[in-house]
């Protein structure tokens, strides 16, 4: 990896990691009386290791590779491996937290291991660690391929990837230490948030610079999805994390918003994060890898563009459906319902478009587990968007909210849609990226597919049952008009479902482990492909990307 950096690039990398070491040291010293000090040491260690890796190779031979005729895939490769590493860690955590609900003594009495502290490790680990790394890695791949251009430089992709992972590490370790804002999916504290803003701006600039260098006049629709993901997530992140630190030498901060206002911002963020992190980014992945793997163009390319604008417009205001029957003004809730229901149109347009693309290639879906991952992902995308719109309706929400139904819904999206499309894409990408004939073991892919599918189905069904049971029990009255069940009664009823859920999660986790193993074995064992490089710089048309000035 290092040998592909020129000496000025190595020097720049050293400068950046060196600065990171200094920042870590400063945090450690200033925050020595606060949990922030621990984060200082983590930053120091992370940047220090990178610093020494760079320093070690500083005077190695200059690279001989001709950059004008190749793509820059090193960060993509590392990103894929990191995504899988986070998948294993975070899904493992998921199995553990799920088990704690069935067997609460599994926490072993340590302060850091309580449900409240490791649950965000699971959620952030899956969403940001696994999903984020997969998005960054695939976006590097897709933006270069669809632009037929190499990334403009070699330091910023590393900065984005490793900087993002530093954020993930700081976030996850922070939860265990007890550093959290307790804002769902936005738990990291102020300095991690600031760091993410810097990383994200560099990411956006890198993406735009690559597109500006493109040799293919058309910008493929996947890039639109990725760009909206980067841009909107940045805005959401900044707005929702506006906070005042209690002290610049301490981790604690207080949100700029309070109460009902904070709730509105939080779910405006929360649901748009679903939209722009867990939907548009992965739709970008779908719109590239699905046609690529199926060998057929998108069924309706026009529809994919239209549904992009539809999703972007409709998603913005649906967040308030998380706050039905609360102190939020009712008209804001109604607003949320209206747009949640309308959102179904562009969502199903996308799901249908994906499935129609496969129409005529069903024999491939039957034979190719990778394609099947993508097909199932599209199906689950359609199902969970329908479920989401359904659950946004007030009477349904009255039953489903606060129960495991919501958890099941989220997981049908996260496991069935996000993880499935990501695994499918990784299986499609790995042989291409490492120039291998195929995956090391197609049987393992099959195993993974069936484990993932059965795990998801078990999980989702368990949660549906659990959620609906609990929701109904809460509102059951005796004949004399009093509440029939105590809260603990509902908890007892949940127990078997919690065991089933942990089991479903375990299957899914096992699949992820198999995937990691399979990818590593593909890299280590499968012989190289005959053609060693793919060539970017000339488009088929060899036309200048930017039309001559008018």
């Amino acid at each position, binding site marked *: 990896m290092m040998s592909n950096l020129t000496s000025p690039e190595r020097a720049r990398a050293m400068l950046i990691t060196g600065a990171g070491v200094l920042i870590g040291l400063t945090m450690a010293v200033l925050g020595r009386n606060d949990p922030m000090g621990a984060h200082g040491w983590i930053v120091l260690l992370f940047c220090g290791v990178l610093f020494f890796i760079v320093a070690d190779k500083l005077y190695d031979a200059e690279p001989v590779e001709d950059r004008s005729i190749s793509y820059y895939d090193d960060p993509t490769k590392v990103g894929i491996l990191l995504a899988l590493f986070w998948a294993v860690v975070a899904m493992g955590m998921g199995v553990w937290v799920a088990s704690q609900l069935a067997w609460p003594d599994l926490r072993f009495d340590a302060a850091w291991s309580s449900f409240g502290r490791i649950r965000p490790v699971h959620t952030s680990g899956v969403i940001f660690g696994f999903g984020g790394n997969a998005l960054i890695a695939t976006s590097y791949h897709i933006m270069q391929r669809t632009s037929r251009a190499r990334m403009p430089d070699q330091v910023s992709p590393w900065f984005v990837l490793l900087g993002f992972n530093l954020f993930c590490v700081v976030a996850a370790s922070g939860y265990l230490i007890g550093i959290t804002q307790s804002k769902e999916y936005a738990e990291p504290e102020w300095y991690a948030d600031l760091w993410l803003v810097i990383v994200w701006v560099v990411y956006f600039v890198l993406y735009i610079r690559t597109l500006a260098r493109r040799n293919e006049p058309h910008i493929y629709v996947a890039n639109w999805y990725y760009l909206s993901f980067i841009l909107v997530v940045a805005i959401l992140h900044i707005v929702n994390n506006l906070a005042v630190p209690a002290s610049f030498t301490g981790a604690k901060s207080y949100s700029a918003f309070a109460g*009902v206002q*904070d709730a509105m911002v939080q779910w405006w963020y929360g649901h748009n994060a679903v939209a722009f992190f867990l939907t548009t980014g992965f739709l970008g992945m779908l719109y590239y890898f699905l046609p690529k793997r199926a060998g057929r163009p998108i069924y309706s390319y026009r529809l994919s563009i239209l549904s992009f604008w539809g999703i972007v417009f409709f998603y913005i205001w649906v967040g308030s459906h998380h706050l039905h029957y609360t102190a939020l003004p009712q008209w804001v809730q109604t607003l949320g319902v209206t747009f949640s229901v309308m959102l179904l149109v562009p969502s199903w347009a996308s799901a249908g478009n994906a499935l129609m693309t496969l129409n005529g290639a069903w024999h491939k879906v039957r034979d190719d587990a990778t394609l099947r991952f993508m097909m199932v992902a599209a199906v689950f995308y359609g199902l969970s968007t329908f479920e989401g719109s359904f659950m946004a309706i007030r009477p349904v929400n009255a039953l489903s909210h606060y*129960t495991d139904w919501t958890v099941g819904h989220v997981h049908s999206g996260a496991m069935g849609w996000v993880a499935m499309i990501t695994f499918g894409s990784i299986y499609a990408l790995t042989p291409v990226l490492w120039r291998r004939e195929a995956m090391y073991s197609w049987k393992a892919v099959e195993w993974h597919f069936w484990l993932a599918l059965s795990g998801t189905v078990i999980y989702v069904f368990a949660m549906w049952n659990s959620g609906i049971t609990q929701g109904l029990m809460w509102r059951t009255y005796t004949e004399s008009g009093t509440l029939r069940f105590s809260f603990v009664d509902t908890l007892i009823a949940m127990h078997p479902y919690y065991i089933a859920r942990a089991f479903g999660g375990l299957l899914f986790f096992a699949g992820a482990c198999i995937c990691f193993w399979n990818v590593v074995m593909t890299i280590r064992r499968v012989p190289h492909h005959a053609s060693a490089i793919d060539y970017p710089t000339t488009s088929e048309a060899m036309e200048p990307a930017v039309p001559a000035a008018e």
Partner: protein
Amino acid sequence: MLKTLLKPFARVFEFQAKTHYKMERHSMALTAGIILAAGVGGFVEIAPLFTIDDTVEDVADMRVYTPLEQAGRDIYIREGCYACHSQMIRTLRDEVERYGPYSLAVESKYDHPMLWGSKRTGPDLARVGDKYSDDWQVRHLINPRDLVPQSVMPQYAFLLEAPLRTDDLPGRLDALRMVGVPYTDDMIANAANDALGQAQPDGDRASGVLDRYGEATAVRVFDGQSGRLTEMDALVAYLQILGNLTDVAQNTQPMAEE
């Protein structure tokens, strides 16, 4: 004469003419200009309208969290309790009957951030204050299954051993004031003392707490061990104030939906 006078401005005119011509040519740019101009102008007009807030009721008896309660709240946040406990009673009949009057916006107006939650693995806590005794709360936190055998809640025995940090409390209150919680200079300056005083009813610091936060403020040994200020003190103090910052909900007895 006039020409020579205007000569220095020729460039300005030229620029104006050029850009105006361009703007007209690209009528889209013109529209964007209109939107921008109208947007800026309009926003100046709109902003004052928002100062009249029709969402959060104005309640006289609503008080801020004491330093000890705020410290407890920070522990509640640190431990991620919101993952299993909501603090928002919805306007549904069964919830009102189970947990008490539904939550009003005003009750969380000093909550930075709000802890309404999204999942009830455990029951709602919006009105858990004074529902159980301090002793029950402490024992429950030490090992929930001692009191509720079927509970799946984690044990928080370590809170009883952990001394509460009070030196950073003035900073925290100050930060909260910056985001809109009406702490006075007096409250901020005495934050550490007040935290200690609220858990030591016999100490000389206790009266300060009552002065600053009102006579109704609970001043007692929350964790059952006098002489030590622990994180358990803070957390229990916080749990016992939940739903008790104002009486407006109980007094108005809002009717539930359905």
